[in-house]
């Protein structure tokens, strides 16, 4: 049986499960595509990252229910590690904890500061959370105190790249004609 579901018909909590799942899959595919793009961009140091794959996550903050946001986050963490070939190394541990921290912080910040920031501020908070958690782990698990020697450039690059990413996400959110069609309940004005 096929339910004829007009986009406007799917209300706040009551959107049909297959539809939201398809959107999660689509967002995850975009995440992994961006992760591949990021992977082929040469980087002077392995820890200096752009974080392109976080773009769909920023948009998902407002559009997906919390459970589906974390589903997307999990797929992104696993898929990105597969692409980078770091699934079974300590890098995965860093990536996992960093992504989880950033996801939690962004979600909390978005809920608490609803409307008083753009995605730029949210993106910066997420990047800082992720980078600080990764540095702390690197200090205690892998590298010892010298891990903090790379902290300032690492954090600075994160701040700049996350600001740019946040800006891009915000622009996309405001100008996209596709998003309002997919998520009419979030674009009611």
């Amino acid at each position: 049986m096929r339910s004829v579901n007009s986009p406007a018909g799917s209300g706040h909590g009551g959107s049909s499960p297959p539809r939201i799942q398809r959107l999660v899959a689509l967002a995850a595919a975009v995440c992994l595509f961006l992760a591949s793009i990021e992977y082929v961009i040469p980087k002077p140091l392995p820890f200096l990252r752009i974080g392109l794959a976080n773009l769909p996550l920023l948009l998902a903050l407002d559009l997906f229910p919390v459970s589906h946001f974390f589903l997307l986050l999990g797929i992104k963490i696993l898929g990105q590690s597969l692409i980078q070939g770091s699934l079974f190394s300590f890098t995965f541990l860093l990536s996992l904890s960093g992504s989880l921290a950033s996801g939690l912080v962004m979600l909390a910040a978005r809920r608490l500061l609803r409307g008083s920031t753009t995605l730029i501020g949210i993106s910066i908070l997420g990047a800082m959370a992720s980078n600080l958690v990764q540095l702390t782990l690197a200090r205690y698990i892998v590298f010892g105190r010298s891990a903090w020697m790379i902290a300032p450039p690492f954090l600075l690059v994160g701040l700049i790249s996350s600001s740019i990413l946040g800006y891009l996400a915000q622009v996309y959110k405001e100008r996209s004609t596709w998003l309002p069609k997919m998520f009419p309940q979030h674009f009611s004005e």
Partner: protein
Amino acid sequence: MTASRVRIRALDIIIFLFALIIIGLISLQTYARGRGTPEITISSAGQGTEQQWIYPLDGEATLRVPGPLGETVVVIKDGAVQVISSPCPEKICVKTGRISKPGQWIACLPNRVFISIRGRRSQQPDAVSQ
């Protein structure tokens, strides 16, 4: 909806500055800690007892260090140490001039005064052969 530009909110800028301040604090803590000021150790064996003084290299002081022959005058200024006068016959300590790097030393053997700079090893090589 014809939003031509993203309207950045005040809180965005506050978050950005807040992050910048945190990065600044971490950099200060990371890079300042390792680079402690070198110390000057001055020891003398005047009047039958060994004495030792420690001064920071970035301070300013004029010290009269007592020794068996009299007072050796040591000046700490502009990140360097120098003996400007000493009651010894050869004045080797005065001729040594200013020292400013960890590992360097000035000795006045007749007056039994020894001055050395201790601290983190400098990044420069001891000597270069050409």
